[in-house]
């Protein structure tokens, strides 16, 4: 073998050995793929309120779009909450793939009006999403919520497994739970729009229960401690403001409804930054009182809001 041939052979072997060893060293001790990310906290989305600014608005009327606009005006205008360039996450209830008249999901006219208002305020992106019980594609289509979002200039996000991660929420039942984090970490403003629904276990499905749609993992286990879970949802999401969509009220057979006889026209919309207060008001729409709802009492005890909605001096308007 010539000198050159020898050098070449040595070089080949050397390179191969170096390559294999290098790869082994690099892989040694790495975290295996698929290891869950460390729990991430969700920041508060509240904005500061000027002294004397309205804290709650109750608007009554039969046309949802103008009702939302009037309520927002009375609250101080959408510009009080949304600034130019914001990334806004609007979270309606899209849990079921049923037509809107069944009253089990947010009214698409209400969603459209909120999304349009955010766009008028100059938001860069208005994202609309939910993690439904039924298949997400059908939910956003059959409820009309997908169309309403797009017509108003927003964007629908459908949940994917990679969007979920554990949340850091110490002292609550949700600490470490798999949450639909991606949109929450992406947005800097969050608005919830919850319909008013009867519910057998929780007794009412209102503003706080609406955030359940951001939970992932085996969330059907949380029913074992439902009241605590809903109260802790108020800690998980501290939204910019919330809308209680009472245009249709699902009075019985909630939360899935199914018959037009279960739904009545409520013709009311309420805005508030305090979800507990909104729920206390919402209870009255279901012919209940705030005292009937154990989760609400728990939420107030944990300091997440006040049940005495009247103390917030709500402005009542009528169209």
């Amino acid at each position, binding site marked *: 073998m010539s000198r050159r041939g020898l050098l070449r052979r040595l070089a080949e072997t050397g390179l191969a050995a170096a390559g294999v060893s290098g790869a082994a060293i690099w892989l040694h001790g790495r975290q295996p793929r698929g290891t869950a990310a460390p729990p991430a906290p969700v920041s508060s989305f509240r904005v500061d309120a000027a002294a004397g600014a309205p804290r709650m608005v109750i608007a009554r009327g039969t046309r949802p779009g103008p009702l939302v606009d009037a309520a927002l005006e009375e609250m101080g205008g959408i510009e009080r909450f949304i600034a130019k360039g914001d990334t806004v996450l609007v979270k309606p209830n899209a849990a*079921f*793939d*049923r037509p809107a008249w069944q009253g089990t999901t947010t009214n698409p006219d209400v969603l459209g009006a909120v999304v349009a208002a955010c766009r008028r305020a100059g938001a860069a992106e208005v994202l609309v999403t939910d993690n439904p*019980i*039924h*298949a*997400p*594609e*059908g939910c956003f*289509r059959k409820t009309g919520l997908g169309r309403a979002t797009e017509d108003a200039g927003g964007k629908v996000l459908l949940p994917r497994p990679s969007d979920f991660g554990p949340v850091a929420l110490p002292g609550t039942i949700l600490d470490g739970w798999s949450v639909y984090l991606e949109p929450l970490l992406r947005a800097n403003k969050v608005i919830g729009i919850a319909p008013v629904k009867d*519910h*057998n*276990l929780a007794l009412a499905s209102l503003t706080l229960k609406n955030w359940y749609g951001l939970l992932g993992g*085996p969330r*059907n*286990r949380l*029913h*074992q*401690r*439902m009241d605590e879970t809903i109260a802790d949802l108020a800690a998980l999401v501290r939204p910019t403001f919330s809308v209680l969509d009472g245009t249709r009220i699902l009075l019985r*057979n909630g*939360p*899935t*409804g*199914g*018959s037009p*006889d*279960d739904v009545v026209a409520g013709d009311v919309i309420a805005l508030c930054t305090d979800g507990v207060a909104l729920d206390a008001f919402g209870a009255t729409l279901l012919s209940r009182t705030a005292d009937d709802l154990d989760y609400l009492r728990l939420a107030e005890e944990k300091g997440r809001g006040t049940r005495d909605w009247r103390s917030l001096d709500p402005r009542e308007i009528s169209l």
Partner: protein
Amino acid sequence: MRIANVRIISQATFLTLFLVCLYLSAAPRIDGYPVSIFLEADPLVALSTAISTGQLYHVGATGLFFGIGLLVATMVLGRFYCGWVCPFGTLHHIVAWLGFPRATKARLEANRFRRWYWIKYGILLAMLVGAAFEILQIGLLDPIPLLSRSMTDAVFPAVDAGLRVVGLGGIHPSATPEFSGAWLIGLLFLTFLLLNLWVPRFFCRAICPLGALFGVFSRFALWRIHRDLSTCGGCNLCSKGCEGACEPEAKVRLAECMVCMNCVEDCPDGSLSYEFLPPPEGAIAGVNVTGRRAVLAGVGGLFLMTLLRRSGSAVLQSGQRHLIRPPGSLAEEAFLARCIKCDACLNVCPTSVLQPAGLEGGFEGLWTPVLDMRMGYCDITCTLCGHVCPTGAIERLTPAQRTGTEERPDGSDGPVMIGTASYDRGRCLPWGMDTPCVVCEEVCPVSPKAIFTREERVIDRDGKPVVLKRPYIDPQKCVGCGICEHECPIRGPAAVRVGSRIGTI
């Protein structure tokens, strides 16, 4: 444009169309597309179901009537479907072309006609004999349902998962569908494709009962391949590309010729052409099935089929069978006389609750659709499975007919009920474990709910009184949709399970 190239374009078009039909067969995309057109236009499906039910199913884009048109065309043109249309045939053609050596001698040997190619006629006869006894097993080997099933259960989910891994979205609108037992279907599919490396178009030549049916009717063909003896140089090159192994260099076997036109292309003397009524001495019109072979096939088929039927009946009587069939399905016996196991319903199902059955309903029911509520649930307003069923095993209903708002053709009223749920109280949290839950009640979609709760006071193990909401089923209201079983937090067998319908009066 050379005719063989036109054929290639035709094959590509129909294969693409077939795959597009499968792709479009999903809730948001389906619109008015006739996604089951290939299945409806399959003459063997039409013939077998006509024998097993006494009727040509007439619902759908064309109904099964169109298959007869194809049969008539075959009687005029020969076995053109195999060479120009069949998507499974095209796949075999592609694999054979990719994998087979180019050397002429090897190819001539591969395209030699083999006597045991008669087996496909035996399979056809056996299947038809079975159909006469209402045992419809044609879907196991008819290429269109076979391809539809293989793509739906095995290939598309694999491709979908692969696309999602690399972040390219997917095929299915929601998550990747999962089908239990898909491994076997995929394995058989791959095996059939790989056999092309031994003999090109092995399936088409030796197994395909649809090809056999076309072959039988090819004897009437008015146009056929003709070899002009005066110009033929005897080089045998015509066999080099022959798809059907039909011996164009000798007397062309009409039953095997797939009208691929390769021989016309390859002949250096230009002796081969596709002629109108050439002299009959140049062709063999019949099939090489002797009387003995026919009897063997017929009796074998009869024996096998009745054996299969026994396994199904045994299961039915032993009470083991609690198959939940798709909404709109006919009663089990009538269902099995129509289901061709194409799995088109599995493909369109938005929640993947429809799964291919294993042997739990007898061998007869292999790969027919059953509901598995742990995999998904049946949306009570959805009627897509019936919309795509080509043979009427699942009737076409509108959502209003399914929920009972509108009358159904069979006159039954109320919502369609596919099963009834019941509680396993030992596994249920509020019943057996003093723990609140009732997710089942929450998700029950009918109004009024089929699951209701009673508040019951119990003393827990620490002596404290605890009030629990305990769930009960109202059998008059439960439609068997299975969302309760699907959402139940108990892993493994759920605490509430849907079984056969409890027939209340």
